[in-house]
């Protein structure tokens, strides 16, 4: 369970910030939200859908843990009798689902106070079923049984030479789908809200740049994952004769491809929020900033938790500099700084985890 919360610390911090930090009066915001849930069945269904997504995330994580060869010792749980095994897995699921159970508890308290018994019943049944089904799934995996006979799904295998920069993106795609989904949804939502709600009085690039900054901050957890993958999954490439400029170029290309959806969204604001001369800085600034987030992770900030104050500090500095409308200079400075740090530290820093393993 600890590992689950550690791995997802970035998402939890982000959600906590979004749910309790952004509203000016969190208590009233959440009371109003809960009242809304208890007033509308469709709203409740939506909330249950979100809980279901969280439940699926838990299932995927625990199943992966149980199937991980490094954690094969967990199968000694099979030595317990079935009742104890089930209780153990239920306990795991309850702890992992604690965030939604706590929120569900708050909804139940208000629901009982208001006498919304149908809603209370639905929430209780939903959570019990979710927890029991999850625990049952873990039990099946633990006992090495299969729920359904495997049906071969036809797939098209496209053979192509994967360029080096694509490795990190493929890693994200294969192992961090949920993080990608959450990050991209949030990032694009920010841009979408900005594009549809903000009507500039005169031409000013700064609001858009600040919005882009916010969008980039939401990518910080992904940047940490990219760094961890480079340190652990691609450590063998340090023996390959790839020059530092090429490695940095690969990083910048990875980031550029990662940010394509944001660029497409920003493009919608052409003519209204920006004009041609400002386009280079709109593209270069996010790429440089993400690269910079990456390079500062060389300074021992090797986890999502450790990276939060670093990202916050850099973002705050960028925020104030952007207010002075520095143009493309800021993007260029960040880009050069990123390259200097990257070339200085790439071969000279190793992850702490690697130290302990060696």
């Amino acid at each position, binding site marked *: 369970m600890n590992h689950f919360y550690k791995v997802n610390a970035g998402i939890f911090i982000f959600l906590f910030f979004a749910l309790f930090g952004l509203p000016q009066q969190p208590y009233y915001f959440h009371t109003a939200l809960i009242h809304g849930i208890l007033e509308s069945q469709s709203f409740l269904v939506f909330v249950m859908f979100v809980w279901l997504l969280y439940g699926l995330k838990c299932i995927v994580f625990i199943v992966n843990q149980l199937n991980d060869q490094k954690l094969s010792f967990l199968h000694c749980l099979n030595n317990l009798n079935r009742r104890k095994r089930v209780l153990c897995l239920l306990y795991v699921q309850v702890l992992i689902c604690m965030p939604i159970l706590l929120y569900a508890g708050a909804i139940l308290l208000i629901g009982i106070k208001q006498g919304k018994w149908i809603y209370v019943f639905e929430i209780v049944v939903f959570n019990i079923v979710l927890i029991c089904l999850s625990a049952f799934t873990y039990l099946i995996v633990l006992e090495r049984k299969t729920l359904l006979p495997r049906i071969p799904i036809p797939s098209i295998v496209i053979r192509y030479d994967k360029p080096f920069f694509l490795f990190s993106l493929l890693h994200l795609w294969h192992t961090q789908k949920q993080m990608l989904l959450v990050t991209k949804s949030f990032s694009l939502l920010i841009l979408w809200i900005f594009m549809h709600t903000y009507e500039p009085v005169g031409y000013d690039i700064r609001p858009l740049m600040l919005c882009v900054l916010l969008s980039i901050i939401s990518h910080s957890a992904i940047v940490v994952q990219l760094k961890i993958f480079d340190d652990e999954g*691609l450590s*063998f490439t*340090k023996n390959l004769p790839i020059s530092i400029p090429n490695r940095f170029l690969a990083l910048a290309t990875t980031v550029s491809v990662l940010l394509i959806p944001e660029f497409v969204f920003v493009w919608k604001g052409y003519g209204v929020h920006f004009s041609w001369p400002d386009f280079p800085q709109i593209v270069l600034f996010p790429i440089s900033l993400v690269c910079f987030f990456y390079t500062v992770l060389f300074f021992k900030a090797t986890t999502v938790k450790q990276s939060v104050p670093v990202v916050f500090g850099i973002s705050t500095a960028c925020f104030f500099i952007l207010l002075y409308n520095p143009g493309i200079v800021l993007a260029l400075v960040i880009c050069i700084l990123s390259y200097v740090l990257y070339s200085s530290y790439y071969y000279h820093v190793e992850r702490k985890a690697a130290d302990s393993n060696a």
Partner: protein
Amino acid sequence: MLKLINVKKYYSSFLALDIPELTIGEGLWWLRGENGSGKTTFLKLVAGLHPFNGDIIIDDEYSIKKQRLHFTRRINYAEAEPLYPSFLTGRDLVHLYCKTKDGNIDEAVENLRQLHVLAAYEKAVGTYSSGMVKKLSLVLAFIGHSRFILLDEPLITIDVQALEVVCRMIGDKHKQGVSFIITSHQSVQKEQLMFSGAMLAAGNTITLIPHEDSK
């Protein structure tokens, strides 16, 4: 020739390896030592995987610190327990190594065929058994025009037939002028690999063992 000058490797404040000076000439070297004596650390330093203090120079010309590209072109390395991204295929890795090390894809494919892993060439490494990953890593270490090939426990995990093929591959490459540093706890290598010398990892350092003592 490989020359190590004032090489020091710290893990936090712990001095894991301290080699004031060491010159390793051409040949087939057996790196011996107990578990935890620093054999793998030594190989990883030479391969450029870990940072360290000091310098390593190959062919009296290329420093790992100053001419890294030239250096890594001349040093290949296969880990004892290789780890590759599970979504990459054998083909992806062979192509990456051939592209960067200027190697021959057909030669690598032939080596894979001899080690009976060619059938999995297009499959993701995540579907490989540990023996297959080990064989793949050995094939990758033979790609290019290296001067030294570092093999960390090349004879573990693989089957008996593959063991013979690997020993033959090492012998053939050695005849072409490539030097090897091999760590192995197995006794089989004495019969199948004609080591020209040995090194001992002990007391946080690496020393050459006189030829008579190495037998």
